[in-house]
Protein backbone atom coordinates (compact mmCIF):
# COMPACT_ATOMS: atom_id res chain seq x y z
CA UNK A 1 0.00 0.00 0.00
CA UNK A 2 1.53 3.33 -0.97
CA UNK A 3 1.73 6.25 1.43
CA UNK A 4 -1.25 8.09 -0.06
CA UNK A 5 -3.65 5.18 0.43
CA UNK A 6 -2.26 4.43 3.86
CA UNK A 7 -2.88 8.03 4.90
CA UNK A 8 -6.39 7.96 3.42
CA UNK A 9 -7.19 4.75 5.29
CA UNK A 10 -6.09 6.34 8.56
CA UNK A 11 -8.32 9.34 7.93
CA UNK A 12 -11.20 7.01 7.10
CA UNK A 13 -10.73 5.22 10.41
CA UNK A 14 -10.75 8.53 12.23
CA UNK A 15 -14.08 9.44 10.63
CA UNK A 16 -15.40 5.95 11.44
CA UNK A 17 -14.52 5.53 15.08
CA UNK A 18 -12.10 8.26 16.10
CA UNK A 19 -9.07 5.97 15.80
CA UNK A 20 -6.23 6.44 13.31
CA UNK A 21 -4.60 9.71 12.46
CA UNK A 22 -6.96 12.65 13.00
CA UNK A 23 -8.03 14.44 9.86
CA UNK A 24 -7.35 18.11 10.61
CA UNK A 25 -10.48 19.28 8.82
CA UNK A 26 -12.74 16.85 10.66
CA UNK A 27 -11.10 17.79 13.96
CA UNK A 28 -11.72 21.47 13.21
CA UNK A 29 -15.35 20.72 12.41
CA UNK A 30 -15.73 18.72 15.61
CA UNK A 31 -14.35 21.59 17.64
CA UNK A 32 -16.44 24.31 16.09
CA UNK A 33 -19.67 22.28 16.13
CA UNK A 34 -19.19 21.00 19.66
CA UNK A 35 -21.27 23.94 20.90
CA UNK A 36 -24.38 22.26 19.44
CA UNK A 37 -23.74 18.95 21.19
CA UNK A 38 -26.23 17.47 23.66
CA UNK A 39 -24.67 18.13 27.03
CA UNK A 40 -26.17 18.02 30.48
CA UNK A 41 -29.68 17.48 29.21
CA UNK A 42 -31.85 16.69 32.17
CA UNK A 43 -34.48 14.03 31.57
CA UNK A 44 -38.05 15.19 32.18
CA UNK A 45 -40.01 13.70 35.06
CA UNK A 46 -41.50 10.69 33.33
CA UNK A 47 -45.05 10.06 34.48
CA UNK A 48 -46.02 6.60 35.65
CA UNK A 49 -48.59 5.54 33.11
CA UNK A 50 -49.48 2.00 34.10
CA UNK A 51 -48.17 0.89 30.74
CA UNK A 52 -48.61 -2.77 31.32
CA UNK A 53 -51.69 -4.61 32.43
CA UNK A 54 -51.42 -5.12 36.17
CA UNK A 55 -51.79 -8.75 37.03
CA UNK A 56 -52.97 -9.07 40.58
CA UNK A 57 -52.31 -12.20 42.58
CA UNK A 58 -55.87 -12.41 43.89
CA UNK A 59 -56.63 -15.66 42.04
CA UNK A 60 -53.57 -17.41 43.42
CA UNK A 61 -54.56 -16.37 46.92
CA UNK A 62 -58.10 -17.59 46.51
CA UNK A 63 -57.33 -20.86 44.76
CA UNK A 64 -54.84 -21.91 47.46
CA UNK A 65 -57.68 -21.93 49.94
CA UNK A 66 -60.59 -24.21 48.98
CA UNK A 67 -62.93 -22.79 51.59
CA UNK A 68 -62.33 -19.25 50.43
CA UNK A 69 -62.83 -20.41 46.86
CA UNK A 70 -66.29 -21.79 47.63
CA UNK A 71 -67.17 -18.80 49.77
CA UNK A 72 -66.27 -16.28 47.11
CA UNK A 73 -67.93 -18.08 44.21
CA UNK A 74 -71.24 -16.35 44.75
CA UNK A 75 -69.55 -13.01 45.26
CA UNK A 76 -67.62 -13.44 42.05
CA UNK A 77 -70.77 -14.23 40.12
CA UNK A 78 -72.38 -11.09 41.45
CA UNK A 79 -69.23 -9.10 40.72
CA UNK A 80 -69.21 -10.49 37.20
CA UNK A 81 -72.63 -9.08 36.57
CA UNK A 82 -71.70 -5.73 38.12
CA UNK A 83 -68.45 -5.40 36.25
CA UNK A 84 -70.10 -6.51 33.05
CA UNK A 85 -72.68 -3.80 33.48
CA UNK A 86 -70.09 -1.20 34.31
CA UNK A 87 -68.03 -2.06 31.30
CA UNK A 88 -70.90 -2.54 28.95
CA UNK A 89 -70.87 -0.22 26.01
CA UNK A 90 -74.21 1.35 25.60
CA UNK A 91 -76.50 3.30 23.31
CA UNK A 92 -75.61 2.30 19.74
CA UNK A 93 -74.26 -1.21 19.46
CA UNK A 94 -74.65 -1.58 15.72
CA UNK A 95 -72.05 0.89 14.53
CA UNK A 96 -69.10 -0.37 12.49
CA UNK A 97 -65.96 -1.43 14.29
CA UNK A 98 -63.61 0.57 12.10
CA UNK A 99 -64.56 3.85 13.83
CA UNK A 100 -64.34 2.41 17.35
CA UNK A 101 -61.54 2.88 19.82
CA UNK A 102 -59.82 0.02 21.56
CA UNK A 103 -60.44 -0.08 25.31
CA UNK A 104 -58.21 -2.13 27.59
CA UNK A 105 -58.88 -2.66 31.24
CA UNK A 106 -55.61 -2.13 33.07
CA UNK A 107 -56.81 -2.62 36.63
CA UNK A 108 -59.90 -4.43 37.79
CA UNK A 109 -61.68 -4.95 41.07
CA UNK A 110 -59.81 -7.48 43.24
CA UNK A 111 -62.91 -9.66 43.26
CA UNK A 112 -63.43 -9.62 39.53
CA UNK A 113 -63.52 -13.08 38.01
CA UNK A 114 -61.46 -14.16 35.04
CA UNK A 115 -63.04 -13.69 31.65
CA UNK A 116 -65.26 -10.81 32.61
CA UNK A 117 -63.01 -7.89 33.36
CA UNK A 118 -59.60 -9.49 33.23
CA UNK A 119 -56.83 -6.93 33.01
CA UNK A 120 -55.53 -6.83 29.48
CA UNK A 121 -58.84 -7.77 27.92
CA UNK A 122 -59.69 -5.49 25.01
CA UNK A 123 -63.02 -4.30 23.76
CA UNK A 124 -64.25 -1.62 21.38
CA UNK A 125 -65.84 1.71 22.18
CA UNK A 126 -68.08 2.82 19.34
CA UNK A 127 -69.33 6.27 18.44
CA UNK A 128 -72.24 7.22 20.67
CA UNK A 129 -71.33 4.68 23.30
CA UNK A 130 -70.38 5.35 26.89
CA UNK A 131 -67.66 3.77 28.96
CA UNK A 132 -67.46 3.80 32.72
CA UNK A 133 -64.99 2.56 35.29
CA UNK A 134 -65.98 1.71 38.82
CA UNK A 135 -64.23 2.88 41.96
CA UNK A 136 -61.34 0.43 41.61
CA UNK A 137 -60.99 -0.06 37.87
CA UNK A 138 -58.74 1.67 35.41
CA UNK A 139 -58.66 1.51 31.65
CA UNK A 140 -56.60 2.62 28.74
CA UNK A 141 -58.20 3.78 25.52
CA UNK A 142 -56.40 4.06 22.21
CA UNK A 143 -57.67 7.25 20.56
CA UNK A 144 -57.74 5.83 17.04
CA UNK A 145 -54.08 6.11 16.06
CA UNK A 146 -53.48 9.56 17.51
CA UNK A 147 -53.12 9.07 21.22
CA UNK A 148 -54.14 7.36 24.39
CA UNK A 149 -56.46 8.12 27.27
CA UNK A 150 -55.73 6.67 30.69
CA UNK A 151 -59.04 6.42 32.46
CA UNK A 152 -58.96 6.62 36.24
CA UNK A 153 -61.48 4.94 38.56
CA UNK A 154 -65.05 6.32 38.76
CA UNK A 155 -64.90 7.94 35.36
CA UNK A 156 -67.54 8.07 32.66
CA UNK A 157 -66.92 9.19 29.12
CA UNK A 158 -68.65 8.97 25.76
CA UNK A 159 -67.19 8.74 22.29
CA UNK A 160 -68.84 11.43 20.16
CA UNK A 161 -66.83 11.54 16.96
CA UNK A 162 -63.97 9.69 15.35
CA UNK A 163 -63.50 10.86 11.80
CA UNK A 164 -60.37 11.77 9.89
CA UNK A 165 -58.96 14.89 11.56
CA UNK A 166 -61.70 15.12 14.19
CA UNK A 167 -61.81 13.02 17.33
CA UNK A 168 -64.13 14.00 20.14
CA UNK A 169 -65.14 12.60 23.50
CA UNK A 170 -67.30 13.85 26.35
CA UNK A 171 -66.00 13.46 29.88
CA UNK A 172 -69.10 13.31 32.07
CA UNK A 173 -67.19 12.86 35.30
CA UNK A 174 -63.94 11.43 36.59
CA UNK A 175 -60.30 11.80 35.64
CA UNK A 176 -58.53 11.25 32.36
CA UNK A 177 -54.87 11.54 31.48
CA UNK A 178 -54.64 12.27 27.80
CA UNK A 179 -51.57 11.83 25.66
CA UNK A 180 -52.18 12.96 22.11
CA UNK A 181 -49.63 12.95 19.33
CA UNK A 182 -51.90 14.01 16.50
CA UNK A 183 -51.42 17.30 14.70
CA UNK A 184 -52.80 20.21 16.72
CA UNK A 185 -56.53 20.63 16.80
CA UNK A 186 -57.52 17.09 16.05
CA UNK A 187 -58.64 15.96 19.46
CA UNK A 188 -61.50 17.59 21.37
CA UNK A 189 -62.89 16.79 24.78
CA UNK A 190 -66.22 18.03 26.08
CA UNK A 191 -66.86 18.52 29.77
CA UNK A 192 -70.13 19.45 31.47
CA UNK A 193 -68.88 22.93 32.26
CA UNK A 194 -66.31 24.43 29.92
CA UNK A 195 -66.55 24.64 26.18
CA UNK A 196 -64.13 23.84 23.62
CA UNK A 197 -60.49 23.93 23.40
CA UNK A 198 -57.52 22.28 22.00
CA UNK A 199 -54.94 20.77 24.22
CA UNK A 200 -51.29 20.01 24.57
CA UNK A 201 -49.86 16.60 24.07
CA UNK A 202 -50.19 15.54 27.65
CA UNK A 203 -52.68 16.71 30.23
CA UNK A 204 -54.90 15.57 33.06
CA UNK A 205 -58.52 16.60 33.25
CA UNK A 206 -60.64 15.97 36.32
CA UNK A 207 -64.26 16.92 36.56
CA UNK A 208 -67.12 16.00 38.87
CA UNK A 209 -70.75 15.57 37.96
CA UNK A 210 -71.54 19.17 38.82
CA UNK A 211 -69.00 20.38 36.30
CA UNK A 212 -66.30 21.45 38.77
CA UNK A 213 -62.84 20.29 38.05
CA UNK A 214 -59.22 20.99 37.26
CA UNK A 215 -57.16 20.82 34.14
CA UNK A 216 -53.39 20.42 34.38
CA UNK A 217 -51.09 20.47 31.37
CA UNK A 218 -47.88 18.44 31.41
CA UNK A 219 -46.71 19.00 27.86
CA UNK A 220 -47.74 21.42 25.14
CA UNK A 221 -50.63 23.77 25.87
CA UNK A 222 -54.34 23.63 26.16
CA UNK A 223 -57.15 25.86 25.07
CA UNK A 224 -60.32 25.83 27.11
CA UNK A 225 -63.48 27.65 26.21
CA UNK A 226 -66.88 28.29 27.69
CA UNK A 227 -69.31 31.01 26.71
CA UNK A 228 -67.28 34.17 26.50
CA UNK A 229 -64.31 32.78 28.42
CA UNK A 230 -61.16 31.39 26.90
CA UNK A 231 -58.26 30.01 28.89
CA UNK A 232 -54.95 28.82 27.56
CA UNK A 233 -53.05 26.52 29.83
CA UNK A 234 -49.40 25.90 28.97
CA UNK A 235 -47.24 23.08 30.32
CA UNK A 236 -46.69 23.43 34.04
CA UNK A 237 -49.91 25.38 34.52
CA UNK A 238 -53.41 24.49 35.67
CA UNK A 239 -56.87 26.02 35.70
CA UNK A 240 -59.97 25.21 37.68
CA UNK A 241 -63.25 24.59 35.90
CA UNK A 242 -66.59 25.85 37.17
CA UNK A 243 -70.16 24.98 36.26
CA UNK A 244 -71.55 27.42 33.71
CA UNK A 245 -68.70 29.96 33.95
CA UNK A 246 -66.25 27.38 32.64
CA UNK A 247 -62.50 27.74 32.87
CA UNK A 248 -61.00 29.76 35.68
CA UNK A 249 -57.82 31.81 35.61
CA UNK A 250 -54.83 29.69 34.59
CA UNK A 251 -51.83 29.83 36.88
CA UNK A 252 -48.42 28.27 36.91
CA UNK A 253 -48.13 25.65 39.59
CA UNK A 254 -44.85 27.24 40.67
CA UNK A 255 -46.71 30.49 41.46
CA UNK A 256 -46.67 31.67 45.05
CA UNK A 257 -49.29 30.38 47.46
CA UNK A 258 -50.63 33.92 47.77
CA UNK A 259 -51.29 34.17 44.07
CA UNK A 260 -52.81 30.73 43.81
CA UNK A 261 -55.11 31.35 46.75
CA UNK A 262 -56.17 34.70 45.29
CA UNK A 263 -56.85 33.05 41.91
CA UNK A 264 -59.13 30.55 43.64
CA UNK A 265 -60.91 33.39 45.44
CA UNK A 266 -61.37 35.32 42.21
CA UNK A 267 -62.67 32.25 40.37
CA UNK A 268 -65.11 31.35 43.10
CA UNK A 269 -66.38 34.96 43.22
CA UNK A 270 -67.04 34.71 39.50
CA UNK A 271 -68.73 31.37 39.82
CA UNK A 272 -72.21 31.64 38.40
CA UNK A 273 -73.67 30.09 41.52
CA UNK A 274 -72.90 33.37 43.31
CA UNK A 275 -74.85 36.57 42.86
CA UNK A 276 -72.36 38.56 40.79
CA UNK A 277 -73.82 41.89 41.87
CA UNK A 278 -73.74 41.31 45.61
CA UNK A 279 -71.46 43.49 47.71
CA UNK A 280 -69.75 40.47 49.22
CA UNK A 281 -68.87 39.04 45.83
CA UNK A 282 -67.68 42.41 44.52
CA UNK A 283 -65.47 42.84 47.57
CA UNK A 284 -64.09 39.32 47.30
CA UNK A 285 -63.27 39.88 43.66
CA UNK A 286 -61.59 43.23 44.32
CA UNK A 287 -59.49 41.81 47.14
CA UNK A 288 -58.43 38.86 45.01
CA UNK A 289 -57.39 41.15 42.14
CA UNK A 290 -55.30 43.30 44.49
CA UNK A 291 -53.49 40.24 45.85
CA UNK A 292 -52.93 38.78 42.39
CA UNK A 293 -51.42 42.03 41.12
CA UNK A 294 -49.18 42.35 44.17
CA UNK A 295 -48.01 38.75 44.09
CA UNK A 296 -47.52 38.49 40.33
CA UNK A 297 -44.03 37.80 39.03
CA UNK A 298 -42.99 37.74 35.38
CA UNK A 299 -44.14 34.13 34.83
CA UNK A 300 -47.57 35.15 36.15
CA UNK A 301 -48.13 37.26 33.06
CA UNK A 302 -50.09 34.16 32.07
CA UNK A 303 -52.59 34.85 34.85
CA UNK A 304 -52.69 38.62 34.34
CA UNK A 305 -53.35 38.30 30.61
CA UNK A 306 -56.37 36.14 31.39
CA UNK A 307 -57.45 38.55 34.10
CA UNK A 308 -57.79 41.51 31.69
CA UNK A 309 -61.16 40.59 30.18
CA UNK A 310 -62.53 39.25 33.45
CA UNK A 311 -62.16 42.30 35.66
CA UNK A 312 -64.45 45.29 35.72
CA UNK A 313 -63.68 48.26 33.49
CA UNK A 314 -62.61 50.22 36.53
CA UNK A 315 -60.05 47.56 37.55
CA UNK A 316 -58.73 46.93 34.04
CA UNK A 317 -56.25 49.86 33.87
CA UNK A 318 -54.50 48.56 37.00
CA UNK A 319 -54.22 45.08 35.55
CA UNK A 320 -52.94 46.55 32.28
CA UNK A 321 -50.24 48.53 34.11
CA UNK A 322 -49.03 45.54 36.10
CA UNK A 323 -48.92 43.26 33.06
CA UNK A 324 -47.16 45.95 31.01
CA UNK A 325 -44.56 46.25 33.78
CA UNK A 326 -43.92 42.51 33.65
CA UNK A 327 -44.11 42.03 29.87
CA UNK A 328 -44.15 45.24 27.84
CA UNK A 329 -46.81 45.20 25.13
CA UNK A 330 -45.41 44.73 21.62
CA UNK A 331 -45.51 47.48 18.99
CA UNK A 332 -49.03 48.13 17.80
CA UNK A 333 -50.62 47.19 21.10
CA UNK A 334 -51.97 50.27 22.85
CA UNK A 335 -53.34 50.84 26.32
CA UNK A 336 -56.63 52.06 24.85
CA UNK A 337 -56.92 48.99 22.66
CA UNK A 338 -56.35 46.63 25.56
CA UNK A 339 -58.78 48.49 27.79
CA UNK A 340 -61.49 48.07 25.19
CA UNK A 341 -60.44 44.39 24.87
CA UNK A 342 -59.41 44.57 21.23
CA UNK A 343 -58.98 40.91 20.35
CA UNK A 344 -56.14 41.38 17.84
CA UNK A 345 -54.16 43.39 20.39
CA UNK A 346 -54.81 40.88 23.16
CA UNK A 347 -53.69 38.09 20.85
CA UNK A 348 -50.59 39.99 19.85
CA UNK A 349 -49.68 40.57 23.48
CA UNK A 350 -50.26 36.88 24.26
CA UNK A 351 -47.79 35.92 21.57
CA UNK A 352 -45.06 37.95 23.27
CA UNK A 353 -45.51 35.85 26.43
CA UNK A 354 -43.84 33.00 24.52
CA UNK A 355 -46.38 30.45 25.69
CA UNK A 356 -47.63 29.38 22.28
CA UNK A 357 -48.89 30.97 19.09
CA UNK A 358 -52.49 32.02 19.60
CA UNK A 359 -52.92 32.07 15.83
CA UNK A 360 -53.04 28.27 16.02
CA UNK A 361 -55.97 28.47 18.37
CA UNK A 362 -57.85 31.00 16.26
CA UNK A 363 -57.51 28.79 13.19
CA UNK A 364 -58.77 25.72 15.06
CA UNK A 365 -61.54 27.78 16.59
CA UNK A 366 -62.75 28.64 13.10
CA UNK A 367 -62.36 25.06 11.95
CA UNK A 368 -64.45 23.80 14.84
CA UNK A 369 -66.92 26.72 14.98
CA UNK A 370 -70.46 25.56 15.15
CA UNK A 371 -69.49 22.35 16.87
CA UNK A 372 -67.97 24.04 19.89
CA UNK A 373 -71.08 25.71 21.20
CA UNK A 374 -72.86 24.05 24.05
CA UNK A 375 -71.06 21.78 26.39
CA UNK A 376 -67.54 22.32 27.55
CA UNK A 377 -64.75 21.09 25.36
CA UNK A 378 -61.02 20.73 25.43
CA UNK A 379 -58.81 20.57 22.37
CA UNK A 380 -55.20 19.78 21.76
CA UNK A 381 -52.75 22.47 20.77
CA UNK A 382 -49.20 21.95 19.65
CA UNK A 383 -46.36 21.67 22.10
CA UNK A 384 -44.55 24.93 22.36
Amino acid at each position, binding site marked *: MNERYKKQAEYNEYLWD*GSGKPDSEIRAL*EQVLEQF*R*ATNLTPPA*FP*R*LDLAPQHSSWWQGISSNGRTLRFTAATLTLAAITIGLLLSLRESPSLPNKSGWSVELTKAQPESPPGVSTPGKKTQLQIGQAFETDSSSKASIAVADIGRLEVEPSTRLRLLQSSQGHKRVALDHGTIQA*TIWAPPGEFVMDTPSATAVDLGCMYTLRVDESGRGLLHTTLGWVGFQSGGHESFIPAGAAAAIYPRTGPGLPYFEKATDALRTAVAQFDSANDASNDPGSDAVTAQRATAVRIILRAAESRDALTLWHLLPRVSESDRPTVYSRLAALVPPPPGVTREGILRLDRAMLDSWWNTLDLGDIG*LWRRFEQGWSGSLAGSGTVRKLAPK
Partner: protein
Amino acid sequence: METPAIPHDSDAALVAASQQGDTDAFGQLYQRYVRLVHGVLLARVRSTEVEDLVQDVFLRALPRLRDLRDASRFGSWLATIARNIATDHHRRVQTQPESPTDSADPDEQPMKSSSLGTSSEAAEILECIRSLPEAYSETLILRIVEGMTGPEISARTGLSPGSVRVNLHRGMQQLRQKLTQRESRGAIESKNRTIG
Protein backbone atom coordinates in the same frame (compact mmCIF):
# COMPACT_ATOMS: atom_id res chain seq x y z
CA MET B 1 -31.09 -25.30 23.40
CA GLU B 2 -30.81 -22.76 26.19
CA THR B 3 -31.85 -19.22 25.46
CA PRO B 4 -29.04 -16.84 26.27
CA ALA B 5 -29.81 -14.68 29.29
CA ILE B 6 -30.48 -11.04 28.58
CA PRO B 7 -28.28 -8.79 30.73
CA HIS B 8 -30.47 -6.76 33.06
CA ASP B 9 -29.00 -3.51 31.77
CA SER B 10 -29.29 -4.39 28.10
CA ASP B 11 -31.46 -2.19 25.94
CA ALA B 12 -33.91 -5.07 25.55
CA ALA B 13 -34.19 -5.49 29.32
CA LEU B 14 -34.61 -1.76 29.84
CA VAL B 15 -37.28 -1.56 27.15
CA ALA B 16 -39.10 -4.53 28.69
CA ALA B 17 -38.94 -2.93 32.15
CA SER B 18 -40.13 0.38 30.74
CA GLN B 19 -43.02 -1.40 29.09
CA GLN B 20 -43.98 -2.59 32.56
CA GLY B 21 -44.08 1.03 33.74
CA ASP B 22 -40.57 1.23 35.22
CA THR B 23 -39.73 4.90 34.74
CA ASP B 24 -36.20 4.44 36.12
CA ALA B 25 -35.49 2.02 33.29
CA PHE B 26 -36.88 4.53 30.85
CA GLY B 27 -34.60 7.13 32.42
CA GLN B 28 -31.63 4.91 31.62
CA LEU B 29 -32.81 4.58 28.04
CA TYR B 30 -33.03 8.37 27.95
CA GLN B 31 -29.36 8.63 28.96
CA ARG B 32 -28.36 6.11 26.29
CA TYR B 33 -30.39 7.57 23.47
CA VAL B 34 -30.49 11.27 24.18
CA ARG B 35 -27.58 11.99 21.83
CA LEU B 36 -29.27 10.08 19.04
CA VAL B 37 -32.53 11.98 19.50
CA HIS B 38 -30.70 15.29 19.84
CA GLY B 39 -28.74 14.62 16.65
CA VAL B 40 -31.78 13.54 14.64
CA LEU B 41 -33.59 16.72 15.68
CA LEU B 42 -30.56 18.95 15.15
CA ALA B 43 -30.39 17.73 11.57
CA ARG B 44 -33.85 19.25 11.06
CA VAL B 45 -34.62 22.10 13.45
CA ARG B 46 -32.84 25.12 14.87
CA SER B 47 -30.45 24.36 17.68
CA THR B 48 -32.29 26.65 20.11
CA GLU B 49 -35.44 24.59 19.70
CA VAL B 50 -33.88 21.15 19.96
CA GLU B 51 -33.72 20.82 23.72
CA ASP B 52 -37.48 21.20 24.23
CA LEU B 53 -38.19 18.84 21.39
CA VAL B 54 -35.87 16.20 22.86
CA GLN B 55 -38.13 16.15 25.91
CA ASP B 56 -41.19 15.94 23.68
CA VAL B 57 -39.76 12.91 21.91
CA PHE B 58 -39.23 10.94 25.11
CA LEU B 59 -42.52 12.03 26.66
CA ARG B 60 -44.31 11.05 23.49
CA ALA B 61 -42.46 7.75 23.24
CA LEU B 62 -43.24 6.62 26.78
CA PRO B 63 -46.99 6.04 26.45
CA ARG B 64 -46.51 4.42 23.05
CA LEU B 65 -43.84 2.06 24.26
CA ARG B 66 -46.20 -0.82 24.71
CA ASP B 67 -46.85 -0.74 20.97
CA LEU B 68 -43.18 -1.51 20.33
CA ARG B 69 -43.03 -5.24 19.61
CA ASP B 70 -39.31 -5.67 18.95
CA ALA B 71 -37.14 -4.14 21.67
CA SER B 72 -34.08 -4.30 19.42
CA ARG B 73 -35.73 -1.70 17.21
CA PHE B 74 -36.06 0.82 20.04
CA GLY B 75 -33.43 3.16 18.59
CA SER B 76 -34.85 3.29 15.09
CA TRP B 77 -38.37 3.56 16.53
CA LEU B 78 -37.30 6.49 18.72
CA ALA B 79 -35.52 8.14 15.79
CA THR B 80 -38.73 7.86 13.75
CA ILE B 81 -40.66 9.61 16.53
CA ALA B 82 -37.99 12.32 16.60
CA ARG B 83 -38.26 12.80 12.82
CA ASN B 84 -42.06 13.00 13.05
CA ILE B 85 -41.86 15.54 15.84
CA ALA B 86 -39.44 17.62 13.79
CA THR B 87 -41.90 17.47 10.87
CA ASP B 88 -44.79 18.50 13.13
CA HIS B 89 -42.63 21.30 14.47
CA HIS B 90 -42.00 22.60 10.95
CA ARG B 91 -45.70 22.57 10.24
CA ARG B 92 -46.35 24.73 13.26
CA VAL B 93 -43.40 27.05 13.17
CA GLN B 94 -42.17 28.97 10.20
CA THR B 95 -38.74 27.48 9.58
CA GLN B 96 -35.77 29.77 9.55
CA PRO B 97 -32.17 28.88 8.92
CA GLU B 98 -29.82 28.57 11.85
CA SER B 99 -28.79 32.04 12.93
CA PRO B 100 -25.54 32.77 14.70
CA THR B 101 -25.75 33.88 18.27
CA ASP B 102 -23.37 36.73 17.60
CA SER B 103 -24.03 39.28 14.89
CA ALA B 104 -22.44 38.66 11.54
CA ASP B 105 -19.66 41.09 10.74
CA PRO B 106 -19.91 42.15 7.10
CA ASP B 107 -16.17 42.48 6.93
CA GLU B 108 -15.55 39.04 8.34
CA GLN B 109 -13.04 37.02 6.38
CA PRO B 110 -14.30 33.93 4.57
CA MET B 111 -14.00 30.72 6.56
CA LYS B 112 -10.90 28.62 6.35
CA SER B 113 -10.57 25.33 8.14
CA SER B 114 -7.76 26.75 10.20
CA SER B 115 -9.92 29.64 11.34
CA LEU B 116 -13.12 27.76 12.19
CA GLY B 117 -14.50 28.87 15.49
CA THR B 118 -17.01 31.68 15.65
CA SER B 119 -20.66 30.98 16.39
CA SER B 120 -21.51 32.58 13.08
CA GLU B 121 -19.31 30.11 11.22
CA ALA B 122 -20.59 27.23 13.28
CA ALA B 123 -24.16 28.11 12.38
CA GLU B 124 -23.26 28.35 8.69
CA ILE B 125 -21.47 25.01 8.74
CA LEU B 126 -24.41 23.40 10.48
CA GLU B 127 -26.66 24.76 7.73
CA CYS B 128 -24.26 23.28 5.14
CA ILE B 129 -24.58 19.87 6.79
CA ARG B 130 -28.36 20.16 6.91
CA SER B 131 -28.42 20.90 3.19
CA LEU B 132 -26.93 17.48 2.47
CA PRO B 133 -29.19 14.51 1.71
CA GLU B 134 -30.99 13.45 4.88
CA ALA B 135 -29.14 10.17 5.40
CA TYR B 136 -25.81 11.95 5.19
CA SER B 137 -26.71 14.99 7.28
CA GLU B 138 -28.16 12.92 10.12
CA THR B 139 -25.22 10.52 10.26
CA LEU B 140 -22.66 13.32 10.02
CA ILE B 141 -24.31 15.27 12.82
CA LEU B 142 -24.34 12.18 15.03
CA ARG B 143 -20.64 11.66 14.34
CA ILE B 144 -19.23 15.19 14.23
CA VAL B 145 -21.59 17.13 16.49
CA GLU B 146 -22.78 14.52 18.97
CA GLY B 147 -19.42 12.74 19.08
CA MET B 148 -20.83 9.26 18.50
CA THR B 149 -18.59 6.75 16.74
CA GLY B 150 -19.65 4.86 13.63
CA PRO B 151 -20.22 1.61 15.55
CA GLU B 152 -22.33 3.50 18.12
CA ILE B 153 -24.42 5.12 15.40
CA SER B 154 -24.95 1.71 13.87
CA ALA B 155 -25.96 0.15 17.18
CA ARG B 156 -28.30 2.97 18.15
CA THR B 157 -29.99 3.52 14.80
CA GLY B 158 -30.16 -0.08 13.67
CA LEU B 159 -28.41 0.83 10.41
CA SER B 160 -25.80 -1.66 9.25
CA PRO B 161 -22.18 -0.66 9.91
CA GLY B 162 -21.66 -0.60 6.14
CA SER B 163 -24.48 1.89 5.63
CA VAL B 164 -23.15 4.13 8.36
CA ARG B 165 -19.67 4.04 6.82
CA VAL B 166 -21.06 4.93 3.41
CA ASN B 167 -23.17 7.75 4.81
CA LEU B 168 -20.22 9.14 6.72
CA HIS B 169 -17.80 9.05 3.82
CA ARG B 170 -20.14 10.26 1.11
CA GLY B 171 -21.57 12.86 3.45
CA MET B 172 -18.11 14.08 4.37
CA GLN B 173 -17.13 14.19 0.73
CA GLN B 174 -20.14 16.34 -0.15
CA LEU B 175 -19.61 18.54 2.89
CA ARG B 176 -16.00 19.20 1.87
CA GLN B 177 -17.23 20.25 -1.58
CA LYS B 178 -19.80 22.60 -0.10
CA LEU B 179 -17.30 24.13 2.30
CA THR B 180 -14.85 24.66 -0.55
CA GLN B 181 -17.53 26.33 -2.67
CA ARG B 182 -18.50 28.48 0.26
CA GLU B 183 -14.89 29.43 0.82
CA SER B 184 -14.48 30.40 -2.84
CA ARG B 185 -17.69 32.40 -2.76
CA GLY B 186 -16.50 34.19 0.36
CA ALA B 187 -13.18 35.02 -1.24
CA ILE B 188 -14.91 36.49 -4.31
CA GLU B 189 -17.27 38.56 -2.17
CA SER B 190 -14.35 39.80 -0.12
CA LYS B 191 -12.45 40.73 -3.26
CA ASN B 192 -15.48 42.57 -4.62
CA ARG B 193 -15.80 44.51 -1.40
CA THR B 194 -12.13 45.49 -1.58
CA ILE B 195 -12.52 46.65 -5.21
CA GLY B 196 -15.75 48.47 -4.41
